[in-house]
């Protein structure tokens, strides 16, 4: 059955001697598929998640509102107008007026600035402090780790609101102190998240591989550990921003937070409850602002969790979902 090849097609002329398997240098290779920068892939995955996309849009609107609050308000926010108290929503006063006749719409808009600012600054404090603690504890280990994590456990034993109130009680109520208090309350959360991730990343093979090149600890932490714990930290940041807004509202509500007449959402809600019978709009609009913002941060946090996981991405790529726009 061997030498003659009955099935050889007629086109097989002697000129076309079969090529010998070549030992020649194979040409340079590229991975298959189109390359897109990592942030674009992350964004693509984030936006393919509808809930997260909605969250993102809401947050962008909120941030723009906070930034351009001065242009967006329709009345000076602290101008009393007793004659026009408790006016229901109308063409003039979109969200109605409050017990002092102030425009609720303008105060909610300005409140976005206050609330987001409190949230952003307090979360930044905890992010920096917590990440630092977590990194050191996780990477160094030993007694440093034990001590740090004991402290974190103690902090966790108290409910966040109580702890925050206690701290404000010590520092004295003010906008600045509210931010510091919330920052301190959240620090252990970040420390714990970061430490956990560092502990797992530290054992990853690529860390050992980079050490084998002669990299110093500082370089390993900055260039490899930090970027690889960034994902859970970013997610935690988003969730914490939501929680910070709630906490600020709660603190203001009990009078331990932002002080009158600053238009913070929580404070407005606190004042509104006394007049619940006079006007639903007093509580509904600030309440909605809180709800929507908190929701948006949460949705985005969940979306980011998926979008930032490179293993997840490989999975999606392998299954063919990542490449959105190619056929």
């Amino acid at each position, binding site marked *: 059955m061997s030498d003659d090849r009955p099935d050889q097609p007629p086109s097989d002329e002697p000129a076309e001697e079969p090529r010998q398997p070549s030992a020649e*240098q*194979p040409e*340079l*290779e*590229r*991975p298959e*598929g189109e*390359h897109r*920068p*990592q942030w674009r892939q992350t964004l693509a995955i984030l936006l393919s998640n509808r809930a997260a996309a909605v969250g993102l849009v809401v947050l962008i609107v909120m941030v723009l509102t906070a930034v351009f609050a001065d242009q967006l308000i329709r009345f000076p926010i602290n101008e009393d107008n007793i004659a026009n108290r408790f006016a229901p929503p109308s063409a003039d006063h979109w969200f109605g007026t409050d017990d002092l006749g102030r425009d609720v719409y303008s105060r909610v808009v300005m409140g976005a600035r206050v609330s987001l600012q409190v949230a952003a600054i307090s979360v930044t404090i905890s992010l920096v402090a917590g990440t630092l603690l977590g990194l050191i504890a996780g990477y160094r280990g030993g007694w440093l780790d034990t001590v740090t994590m004991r402290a974190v456990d103690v902090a966790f034993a108290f409910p966040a609101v109580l702890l925050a109130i206690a701290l404000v009680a010590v520092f004295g109520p003010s906008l600045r102190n509210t931010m510091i208090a919330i920052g301190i309350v959240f620090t252990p959360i970040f420390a714990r998240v970061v430490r956990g991730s560092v502990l797992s990343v530290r054992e*990853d*093979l*690529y860390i*050992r*591989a*980079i*050490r*084998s*090149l*002669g*990299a*110093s600890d500082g*370089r390993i932490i900055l*260039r*490899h550990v930090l*970027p*690889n714990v960034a994902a859970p930290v970013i997610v935690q940041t988003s969730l914490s921003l939501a929680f910070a807004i709630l906490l600020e509202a709660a603190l203001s509500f009990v009078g331990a937070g932002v002080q009158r007449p600053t238009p913070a959402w929580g404070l407005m809600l606190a004042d509104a409850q006394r007049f619940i019978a006079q006007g639903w709009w007093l509580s509904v609009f600030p309440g909605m602002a809180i709800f929507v913002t908190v929701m948006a941060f949460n949705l985005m946090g969940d979306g980011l969790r998926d979008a930032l996981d*490179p*293993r997840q*991405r*490989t999975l999606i*790529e392998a299954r063919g979902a990542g490449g959105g726009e190619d056929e």
Partner: protein
Amino acid sequence: MSDALVTVDDLSVYFPVGRRRDGTAVKAVDGVSFEIAKGETLGLVGESGCGKSTTGLALLRLVEPTRGSVTFDGIDVRELSARDLRRWRRRAAMIFQDPYASLDPRQPVGEAVGEALDIHDLHQGKQARRTRIGELLERVGLHPDVAERYPHEFSGGQRQRVGIARALACEPDFIVADEPIAALDVSIQAQVMNLMAELQRDLDLTYLFIAHDLAAVQHVSDRIAVMYLGRIVELADRIDIYRSPQHPYTQALLSAIPVPEPTRERSRRRILLEGDLPSPMDPPSGCNFRTRCAEVFEACGRVDPALAPVTDGHEAACLLHHDQGQAVERSHHPDAREHQKA
């Protein structure tokens, strides 16, 4: 051997187990000695968990040895300060088994290669760095414009080549390759082995090639060390070890490897090992292998055989080959074996 680049003497690595320091330890590597000549490839084979990776890591001080010494080109590696150790790493690189796990998932592959250059200040300026990264990628058969891509975009074989490019960036003299082909497809394994061989020729590299696939090890190595339970049981030239294996474990290992020949495979009578690998926490007394050895005799439980020359350049750690008079007590004496069973 006077031209040894790497000399390992009595290297041991024990991992303490549990929190209590009661002395229980995994004896991952237990008194291993060998030399690797400049330009040579030493293959290290053995079953999973026998301590191959740990040997490689300890050699580069990526885990701290418990005992013993490693000399690299006259440098006592265990004496290096943290700072000198980092600087020394330039000369001795490592390639890992899992080409995905050994690359930072958030670092483009060009950066992974470039980082090695940065660490040791091996480039002048951004442009030079870029060019060098391109050269290195090209050297391993990848297109220079893939530098911006992330590891997850590459296939297994391509990732492994990135790992090799990174190892080459420091222009090392010595590379420990820990199962560099185990995770790859057969047709891709040859690509990587050929590449490593070519690089060795061109760059005068010295390799410690770790694998469990004896055929692959034999293909790339000049000499081969067989490990069992933390020890080297036999060390010989790549052909010798195959032509005349001296240690019963090596014989069993070779006999177990299937070869791509149907007629021969069907008629082979394999030496099947009985029982399981003993725990490295509590290895048997005397010779490690005696619990599974077909040729065991009474002295094996008492005497711990050292690696000793059998013929020129062929060493084995087995009492059968030691000149101390026990050699006559071969397993063929039925009563000798009875002793052991007790």
